[in-house]
């Protein structure tokens, strides 16, 4: 642990800025892509009430992405460059976020949400005391909305595993998703990761976060009667996302959400809401 002082953008040299950017892109991209997938459940969820709830979670996550992208604007980029014109290989979300749901894959949706939300909970706790003040100042706002997400996922999981039809589907989703969930803790570039830790941008390393995560999700999932793959025996998928390598699904998704922007030859984006710094 090196820095104890409050760090602002101006205080940082290029290497340090790269560390902050890496951390912020990871937060932003994970939230954004997770939300894109959640919105697929709009008008498709099992009941009207569950449709409303998941749509809200999607909006929460998009709102969080918006806050993190806004911090990246300090580095001289605008929303158009950060989202709409950024090529797919320059996105750094974990590949867990980009996988499509199978039709009717509600078990996947709630399990993925659980796996992700626990990681999110730990990751946010690790930046509550970040030396980068602009990040630290926004953590609580985001955390306030995450509690509901985790409870929502757990409530569903507990009910689904209670029925045979549900249990088998959750187990199948777990077998499929578990290796991808581990990509949440994959380093982008070990050197940059070390810099993130040295600068005190977060107070837990990725491998510590991975261990904390396993300590929480494994006993919980086992308590639901699920067989959790042995993390020691689990290979990461070939595309982890953090280094810009993604599955083909990501190219399709990227193509879809940038379609209007491209079709209309847009060169900028419209803001409806005030800048987060002005609220």
């Amino acid at each position, binding site marked *: 642990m090196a820095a104890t002082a409050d760090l602002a953008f101006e205080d940082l040299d290029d290497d340090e800025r790269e560390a902050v950017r890496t951390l912020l892109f990871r937060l932003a991209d994970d939230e954004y892509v997770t939300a894109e997938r959640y919105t697929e459940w709009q008008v498709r969820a*099992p009941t*009207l009430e569950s449709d409303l709830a998941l*749509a809200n979670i999607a909006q929460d996550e998009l709102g969080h992405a918006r806050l993190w992208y806004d911090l990246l604007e300090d580095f001289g980029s605008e929303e158009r460059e950060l989202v709409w014109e950024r090529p797919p290989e320059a996105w750094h979300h974990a590949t867990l976020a980009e996988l499509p749901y199978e039709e009717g894959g509600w078990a996947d949706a709630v399990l993925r949400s659980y796996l992700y939300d626990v990681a999110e909970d730990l990751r946010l706790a690790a930046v509550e005391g970040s030396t980068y003040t602009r990040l630290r100042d926004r953590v609580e706002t985001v955390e306030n909305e995450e509690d509901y997400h985790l409870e929502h996922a757990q409530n569903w999981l507990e009910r689904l595993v209670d029925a045979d*039809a549900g249990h088998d589907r959750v187990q199948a989703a777990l077998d499929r998703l578990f290796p991808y969930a581990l990509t949440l803790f994959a380093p982008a570039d070990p050197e940059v990761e070390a810099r993130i830790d040295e600068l005190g941008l977060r107070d837990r390393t990725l491998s510590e976060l991975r261990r904390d995560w396993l300590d929480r999700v494994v006993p919980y999932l086992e308590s639901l009667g699920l067989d959790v793959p042995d993390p020691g025996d689990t290979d990461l998928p070939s595309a982890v996302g953090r280094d810009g390598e993604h599955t083909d699904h990501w190219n399709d998704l990227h193509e879809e959400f940038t379609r*209007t922007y491209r079709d209309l030859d847009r060169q900028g984006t419209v803001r409806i809401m005030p800048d987060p710094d002005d609220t």
Partner: protein
Amino acid sequence: MDIAEVRDRAGPREFNAGDDMPEEYREAATRMIQFHANSEIMGAYLERPFVRQAPSLDRKLAFSAKVQDEIGHGQLLYRAAESLGVKTRDEMLDELANGEGKFLNCFHYPMDSWAETPMIAFFVDGAAMRRQATLKSSSWEPYAHAMDKVCFEEGFHVKHGEDILRELMNGSRKEQRMVQDAFDEWWPRIVQFFGPTDDDSTHHGFAEEVGLKQMTNDQLRSAFLNAYVPKAEQYGLEIPEYPRIEERDDGTYEVRESDLDWDEFFAIAKNDYEPGVGQIDGRARTQEAVEWVRGVLDEREQAAGTTAAAAD
């Protein structure tokens, strides 16, 4: 209560589930509210791809919130319909899936590009809101209560839709042209939103007599045109020549209905129009795929019911 008494008492918010309503009232009200509820769902179905295709973060958030609200309106309306005791929500959703459930003409057409979104998000929603504002005085209290919340939320939808229209019409020539093309295509459907004039409207007489609806199709359409034609013109949209619309001396509008395609309209009304059928089936397929989840919930509810009964 007999029909004569219903007619006699039929004021705003007069009747609710505690009243012994005649079969004829309950069926007419169910038909009307179920149609309204189905329309919320099928409108949301049509707009949902644009959550993904919205061209900015804020627009994406707003579109998601809008589609979410429409599903919420469906929830409110199916409950209002259910309270009549004729059909359960599950039955009504099954009818929507199997093609028996009817819904608004505009939601039977496909929507392919962002430039089309204001056609529904501004014009159709604006037309719907005009009608919904009058339904706050419906004689079926649960329906009127649902309208309170729907109208409360709907101001966001219409302004959001107008804001997209404003943005596009202040955008590039290409964007303006795309919107005008969309408008040319959608305008006759929007004019048909309120249905044929009252002479041809089959269910209107009874619904008005028992206070389920408050204004005639013609009055509603006139009020809509009064507010929305100037808006379209303000943004530089050209009103298509057909259907011919003439202003009467009293400021209301006369639409030459013979200029509109009523064969298509009535085919749609019977769920016999191809794009609409595809949309009904498309929704049905995704709902069928999560039937297993509803099964799990039902099983749980029944088990809880058994436990509660055993405890009594």
